C-alpha cells in the first residue's frame, strides 16, 4: 500500500475521532480538528478558485488567445475590490447593480416558470382520465403518483395549508376545520422532513464508522485502535486535571 494512503488513513482516523470526542465534552482535540477543517477547506477553495478563475479563465485566454473582451467582466469584478477603500467604495455599487440586475433577470422568470406555474399545473390535474378503449377512469391506487385519489389528497392539502396561512379571516366554524386540516398536512410534511434528516445524519455516522472499521486493518497499521486509545487517554487526563483544579479553586 502506498505511504500516502497510509498517512491519509491515519489523518482521517485521527480527525474523525477528535471530532467525535465532542460528544463527550468540548476539548482541545475537537478544537484542533475543527480549526483544521475550516482552514483546509478555505485554503483549498482559495487555491482552486485562483487556479481556475485567474489562471485558466482570465490569464490564459487573454495572453495566449488574445481574447481582450474578457477585460470587461474583469473590470466589473475588480470594481468590487473598491469596497476595501472607503473613499472609493461607492464605485463597487456599479458592480453590484450589474450582478443584481443580471441575476434577477435570469432567476425571476425561470423560477416563476419552474416552481409556481409547473407546480400549479401539477396540482390542478383532472380527476378523470380518458383512456382510449376504456373510457373515463378514476384510479384509486395510492402507490401510483398520478392516481385520482392522490390528486384529491394533494388538492385538499394545498388548499387547507394555504387557508391556514390566510389570516384575514378568523379561523372559526368551518374555517377552523379547514385550518386544522392544514396543520395536519403541515405536521405530516415536517415529520417526513425530520425522518429524512435523521436518516441523513445517521448515514454520515455510518460513513465515518465504515472508514474507522476500514482503517482498523493491519495494512494501515491499525490507526483506529491506536488513535482511539490516544483520544480516550487524553480525555481521561483532561478530566483528572479539571477535577484537580476544582478543589484548589475551592480552597
Amino acid at each position, binding site marked *: 500500500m502506498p505511504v500516502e494512503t497510509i498517512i491519509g488513513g491515519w489523518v482521517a482516523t485521527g480527525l474523525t475521532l477528535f471530532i467525535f470526542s465532542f460528544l*463527550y465534552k468540548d476539548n482541545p482535540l475537537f478544537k484542533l480538528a475543527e480549526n483544521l477543517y475550516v482552514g483546509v477547506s478555505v485554503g483549498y477553495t482559495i487555491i482552486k478558485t485562483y487556479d481556475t478563475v485567474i489562471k485558466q479563465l482570465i490569464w490564459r485566454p487573454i495572453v495566449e488567445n488574445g481574447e481582450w473582451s474578457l477585460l470587461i467582466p474583469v473590470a466589473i469584478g475588480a470594481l468590487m475590490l473598491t469596497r476595501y477603500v472607503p473613499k472609493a467604495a461607492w464605485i463597487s455599487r456599479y458592480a453590484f447593480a450589474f450582478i443584481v440586475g443580471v441575476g434577477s433577470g*435570469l432567476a425571476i422568470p425561470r423560477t416563476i416558470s419552474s416552481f409556481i406555474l409547473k407546480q400549479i399545473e401539477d396540482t390542478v390535474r383532472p380527476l378523470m382520465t380518458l383512456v382510449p378503449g376504456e373510457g373515463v377512469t378514476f384510479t384509486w391506487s395510492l402507490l401510483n403518483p398520478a392516481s385520482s385519489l392522490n390528486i384529491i389528497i394533494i388538492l385538499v392539502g394545498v388548499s387547507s395549508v394555504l387557508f391556514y396561512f390566510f389570516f384575514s379571516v378568523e379561523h372559526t366554524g368551518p374555517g377552523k376545520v379547514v385550518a386544522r386540516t392544514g396543520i395536519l398536512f403541515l405536521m405530516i410534511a415536517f415529520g417526513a422532513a425530520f425522518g*429524512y434528516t435523521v436518516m441523513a445524519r445517521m448515514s454520515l455516522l455510518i460513513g465515518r464508522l465504515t472508514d474507522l472499521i476500514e482503517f482498523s486493518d493491519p495494512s494501515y497499521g491499525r490507526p483506529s485502535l491506536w488513535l482511539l486509545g490516544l483520544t480516550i487517554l487524553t480525555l481521561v487526563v483532561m478530566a483528572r486535571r479539571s477535577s484537580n483544579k476544582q478543589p484548589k479553586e475551592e480552597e
Partner: protein
Amino acid sequence: MTFAERMLKIDRRIIFLVIGVCTLLPLLYPVGLPIKISPEVRGVYDHIESLPEGSVFLLSLDFDPASKPELHPQSISLLRHAFRKNLRVIAMTLWVSGTGMADQIITQVAREMGKESGKDYVFLGWSPGGTVVIINMGQDLYGAFPADYNGKSTKGLPVLHGIANLRDVNYAVSLGAGRPGVEEWYVFGKDKYKFELGGGCTGVMAPGLYPLLRSGQINGLIGGLRGAAEYETLMDQKGRAIAGMDAQSATHLAIIVLVIMCNLFYFSSRNTPRQQGHSGA
C-alpha cells in the same frame, strides 16, 4: 424522583453510546436485510438502461466531502452503469470544494471499467458562477469549459464530438447536496434547454425534491444512502451503501424505541403530580 423523571434526565452521552453501538454492530456483523426498489430510483436506472450506446450522459457531482457517505456511493453506481452501457460521460461539478473528490471518483471508476479520458469520458472540473455555468453550458459548452480538469482543450476531444451545448445531452443527472444542485439544473438547464433530467440528493433534501418528481420535472430521484443502496441492488453490485443499510435500519429502530420510551416517560411523569394531588385532596 420517580423512575420516569430519572430516565428523562438521563445523561445524553448514554444515548450517543446506544446509537453508536446500534450503528457499529450491524456494520461489523451484517444481517443482509432485503432492499425494496422504489419507483423514483428505478426511474433513473430505467432511463439510463434505455439509452443507446454512445448517448451523451452528463453527471454533475454537486457535493463536497461533507456529503460523501450519501452521494459517493450514488456517483460510483451511476458511473459504473453509464460506462457499462458505453455512454459518453461528461462529468463536472458546481461545487469548488468537491472538485478533487469528483476527479478521484471518476478516475477510479473509469480505471476500473477500462475507460479512457478524452475518448470515453471527460471531467470538466469546476467553473465559477453556479447557475450561470448551467446557462453558459446551454449556450456554448466550450465557452463554459474551454479546458478540462487536466488543462486539455475541450475543443476536439473525441468524447465531445457533435456536442455544442446542453441541447445535445441525452440525459443529465445532478447529485446535489444543496445549492447549486438538482433544482438549479432543472430551472436553468432542463426547463430552458429541454434535456431529460434525473436527480440524486442527500436525505435532508429529498422531501423538498419530491414535488419536482411528481410533476415530471425530474424523471427519477435517488435519495440519500437508501437510494444509493437501491441503485447498487439494481446494478447487482454490493457497495458501501448496501453495507450500511443494516446499520441504518438498526439505528432507525433504536431511535423509534427511544422516541416511544421518552413519550411514555414524559406522560407518566406528567400524570404523577396529578395523582399525588388527587390522593392529597
